[in-house]
């Protein structure tokens, strides 16, 4: 199942990976609380359980690379270093949010960090990623675009159109499929005639690979690095299918009746944060104290974010009319 701790990664960076995953986890646990209290509205799609994917992939990107993702975007945003407080403020609909309060949970943006959203139409983010990568290629830049998508998006026509364009034009884009086994309540096997999804990429002549254990941040990183190298060398797109699991419901409204406890449990055992923590312990790369410090630190950061969100003003009514046109 899992590989070993990658000892080529400097210790400080290992701790950063852990911290990043913990930050996502706590950020979301606390958002769920504030959703229940009515401070956050709309749909809230938690990434809990999938943290190794966002953190593993995004930790390997350069500053000039870009990220396009779907509505389950908090993990990607935080892994990319978007301001935690501004992310929380966005959930609270505040003017200080990453999208000025206009986007909400599904539409986080930070163009200064190459974080090109947060897109809520399933599959709709893919042509955008193709277009951004087209610009890179046109300009002869070697930066790349990572396009996250869910297993559910695979059945949309835009998936097919985007794969074809990316391959045909040999664009520097990494399609990063988060296969968490379900699109809402529908199992991959009930939605896709080809449940080994990355094989669809093969047929567009896109190099592809599956990572069986996306809960292991080292596995994720190893595969991602291969993909990134391949793309940066000018070989065109790459498709990575990463197997993972969402621990919570699709959104806060999900009655979660479509999956059985006995199939969920083995996955809960594969908690990416627990896995990484255990590895760091085993290999003596982090002491319990160090981990406690990270926890405390993350707690503070999230607390500060919540305070910031609570204290920030809502957008003023004039904001309704700004940003419609440039």
């Amino acid at each position, binding site marked *: 199942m899992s590989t070993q701790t990658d000892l080529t990664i400097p210790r400080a960076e290992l701790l950063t990976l852990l911290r990043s995953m913990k930050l996502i986890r706590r950020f979301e646990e606390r958002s769920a609380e504030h959703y229940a209290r009515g401070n956050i*509205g*709309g*749909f809230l799609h938690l990434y809990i359980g999938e943290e190794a994917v966002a953190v593993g992939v995004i930790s390997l990107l350069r500053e000039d690379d870009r990220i396009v993702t779907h509505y389950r975007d908090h993990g990607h945003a935080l892994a990319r270093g978007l301001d935690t407080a501004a992310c929380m403020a*966005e959930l609270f*609909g*505040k*003017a200080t*949010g990453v*999208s000025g*309060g*206009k*986007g*909400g*949970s*599904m*539409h986080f943006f930070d163009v200064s960090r190459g974080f090109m959203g947060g*897109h*809520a*139409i*399933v*599959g*709709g983010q893919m042509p955008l990623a193709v277009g951004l990568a087209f610009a890179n290629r046109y300009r002869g830049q070697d930066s790349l675009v990572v396009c996250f998508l869910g297993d*559910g*998006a695979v*059945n*949309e*026509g835009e998936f097919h159109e985007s794969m074809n364009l990316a391959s045909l034009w040999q664009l520097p884009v990494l399609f990063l499929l988060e296969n968490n086994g379900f*699109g*809402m*309540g*529908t*199992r991959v096997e*009930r*939605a*896709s005639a080809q449940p080994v999804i990355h094989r669809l990429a093969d047929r567009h002549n896109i190099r592809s690979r599956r990572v069986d254990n996306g809960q292991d941040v080292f596995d994720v990183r190893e595969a991602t690095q291969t993909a990134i190298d391949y793309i940066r060398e000018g070989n065109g797109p790459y498709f990575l299918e990463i197997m993972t699991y969402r621990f919570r419901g*699709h959104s806060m*409204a*999900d*009655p979660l*009746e*479509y999956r059985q406890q006995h199939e969920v449990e083995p996955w809960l055992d594969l908690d990416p944060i627990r896995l990484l923590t255990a590895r760091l312990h085993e290999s003596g790369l982090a002491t319990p104290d160090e981990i406690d410090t990270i926890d405390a630190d993350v707690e503070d950061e999230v607390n500060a974010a919540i305070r910031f969100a609570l204290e920030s003003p*809502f*957008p003023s*009514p004039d*904001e*309704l*009319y700004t940003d*419609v046109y440039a």
Partner: protein
Amino acid sequence: MPQLTYREAIRVGLEEALAANPETVIMGEDVGAYGGSYAVTKGFLEQYGEERIIDTPISESGFVGAGIGAAIAGMRPIVEIMTINFSLLAMDQIVNLAAKARYMSGGQMTVPLVIRTVSGGGNMLAATHSQSLEAWYARVPGIKVVTPSNPADALGLFRSAMADPNPVMYVEHSLLYGSRAEVPDEPYTVPIGSASVARPGTDVSIIAYLRMTPVALSAADILEAEGISAEVIDLRSLLPLDSGTIIDSVNRTNRAVVVEETWEFGGFAGEVIAQINERAFDSLDAPVLRVAGVNVPTPYSRPLELLTIPTAEAVADKVRSLFQA
């Protein structure tokens, strides 16, 4: 049947349809195992089985087109598009196939299809998930569009939609699902293309549909206290439109305000106003006014979102303006 919620009324309609015709199936995203994203079809999978309650892949063009094909083959399918926002991905199939198959084939094909979908905002779902796009479909010859605002109409229109040999877009509103009201016990239908006088009045006609009907009714309450008797017309169907009931009302009240949840510019209210203008011009004591959504993409933030959707107070205000001259 005593009191039903809007959701329950639609469920009754769906269950009647499933019982009436073994070739009726329900297909759409998460209508089965998940129970429908607004819980309208909860329990159906267990009750009717996966041959008839069909969870589709997320591929709106594909499964809506498949529904059209099944209907052309003579089945009586019900397709659910989770929200009308996603219908844009199936719009070609609806506009270029469902609406035109009969005409282009010189009458050889029939498309007895009901497409259920959910329109509207007010749920903090932001710009891509809060749109009211039914007016686009309501201008396509070959399809029909209905928009029930209460449980009794929901069931009555659903029955008519299922009995209609044409493709019918049956448009629901998520903020109405929990609303509860009397539904007649005896068998009844609400004909497609018939508006209702949701509240009679003499001084002004407030014309609304879907979730703006309860808003218009509240406005009428407010106005009544001020001595203005407002008649509320609930369009119920957008295509075909019951122009007669509208014109009739305006001929009596001599004033009208049209209420629409979404973007004012280019909206359905324009059609209503054009018809009143043409057919009741001489009755008008004042211009026909609109109260509609603000022309911006819907923002997430609650205080901003609330500004985008007409309120009863705003409707009352607009009506008042007709009486100050």
